[in-house]
């Protein structure tokens, strides 16, 4: 580990490529295992009238397992990938999460109060939090985007979007 200096001149700390590779390969291995497991349950053999339902997926699952095992082996025992490489630096991860976490809340918001209200709130929040815009401007833009979307989908194209489990828009008849 110490003999490979100079590979990265600027040292960023973060999640290493190695760790990320292992996590992804293990997840894929697990998924492959699930596919094989369910294919065996369904039957993966050739019976009198043709292949059973699990025949094709069984091999697919098997290939996923084999491919991810090899990748895992290459990461664990191969010499090609240095431990120094950073998959994502903490600084970068913070930025990525600052998009991802609000996005998850946005989707939760859709589930509860529908796309239109959630979108207005999400855009406004994002602008204030990351863009440092003032509240009034952000809220106005959020609402404007929502209204345009509403006009486009509900009125022009007549494609109703999800209004949420509590549907606050029912008070205006939608």
């Amino acid at each position, binding site marked *: 580990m110490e003999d490979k200096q100079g590979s990265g001149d600027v040292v960023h700390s973060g999640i290493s490529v190695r760790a990320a590779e292992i996590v992804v390969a293990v997840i*894929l291995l697990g998924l492959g295992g699930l596919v094989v497991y*369910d294919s065996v349950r369904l039957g993966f053999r050739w019976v009198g009238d043709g292949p059973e*339902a699990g025949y*094709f997926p069984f091999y697919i699952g098997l290939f996923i397992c084999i491919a991810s095992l*090899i990748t895992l082996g290459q990461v664990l025992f191969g010499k090609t990938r240095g431990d120094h490489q950073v998959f994502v630096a903490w600084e970068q991860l913070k930025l*990525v999460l600052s998009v991802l976490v609000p996005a998850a809340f*946005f*989707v939760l918001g859709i589930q509860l109060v529908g796309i239109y209200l959630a979108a207005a709130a999400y855009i406004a929040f994002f602008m204030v939090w990351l863009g440092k815009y003032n509240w009034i401007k952000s809220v106005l833009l959020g609402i404007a985007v929502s209204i345009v*979307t509403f006009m486009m989908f509900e009125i022009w194209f007549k494609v109703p979007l*999800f209004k949420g489990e509590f549907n606050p828009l029912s008070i205006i008849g939608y």
Partner: protein
Amino acid sequence: MEEINALFHGFSVALTPFNLLLMFIGVTLGVLIGVLPGLGGANGIAILLPLTFAMPPTSAVIMLSCIYWGALFGGAITSILFNIPGEPWSVATTFDGYPMAQQGKAGEALTTAFTSSFIGAFFAVVMITFLAPLVAKFALKFGPPEFFAVFFLTFCSFIGMGKEPPFKIVAAMMLGFALAAVGIDTVTGQLRLIFGWHELMRGFDFLIAVIGLFGIGEILLSMEEGLSFSGRTAKINMRIVIETWKKLPRFWLTSLRSCIIGCWMGITPGGATPASFMSYGIAKRMSPDGAKFGTGMAEGVIAPETAAHAAGTAALLPMISLGIPGSPTAAVLLGGLLIWGLQPGPLLFVEQKDFVWGLIASMYLGNIAGLIIVLTCVPLFAAILRVPFSIIAPVIIVICAIGAYTVHNAMLDIWLMLLFGVAGYAFKKLAYPLAPLVLALVLGDQAESAFRQAMLMSQGDVSIFFSNGLVSSIMGLGLLMLVWPFISRLKASMRKNAA
């Protein structure tokens, strides 16, 4: 001659005022999509697909394919003015395009890029016009074993031609097949891989995967780089365009070579991105000015742009003639065919003449419309990029969420989109390719049913895939592609030992 007649019939189908309007709307939307980070050809079309359900199929496919042309054009704008490739296939365009813009020749660079794109696309469309009917006629003789062999070849090509580690390509591809298998088995009616979760009965729709993997994944990636746009301004007027056009014929050889590389890479599912890099590399090696590449040579813009567009267009050939798409975007268009009630495959040329030839004619017209729009509206599109990322990012995520929801009107799909977004981010960073995953998800059911039918024909004997000259040569080619990474590694190590 038959093709020419059919093509003129196609023009009469495509040239209605309504379709022309859709063409211009499509190209404009497409350029927008190409310019904005997080929205690209594949997911842009996926998001807009549900809006076309009510349109006649021909008009719908014209609009959607024009979005595709627009997206191909749009990628060049950000590459040249901002040094940010709007699309992966325009990465190579930044090498010489951005230096040109820095030297104050942005207008010239853009004109060169757009004209090259147009030439590349045009070459590919001419090829499609004459080759697609032949391929389709030939493919009418195909039975299930031959179709499975073509699927096999398609997927093996990803392994043989991909730059990523081969086992990662296999893993990504097989994951796509596994996701495609989720839900009701079409043959036995059994529920597969849902583990008692009945909302999964519908299976995973590839449109959701495309929106998540490409859209959300791309936003997360751009966020990481902490995007701050600082671009050059461009002026394009008629004088610059004509002066640039006067210079271009000198590079006819580079153009032609790039067209051929692009067509080849587009039909075999290598795709536009490797085509653009390959073409740039070869032009650099062959040109007398090769050493000056990277400092703002027009030739360095011509080569990747021509090849990328030729590849992007040629990817539609296997889609319309065999029902097998050559790129994720072609796959989304193919999904559209199914939704509009058309069965993709060689029969399309027999049963849906209006549709096929209308589409082919619209490729000619759409590219002309595209060239006009990009040459006249560059400042407008460049202005969009000056909207701060903190406004664009949430708006794009909202658009993606709406797109994901409208596919099946299912809330679960929005959550899945988010999950695919995270997966897309990780996959991209770890060099797991997304294109084979998406294509496997689209073609999984068809590949499986071709496989099962073939196996039924032979009562479970695998040798049916080598039972006649045609099927065994396609399978043989596929197997060669499959082992290609190992052969080339072996060759490389032998060369190293010899040296």
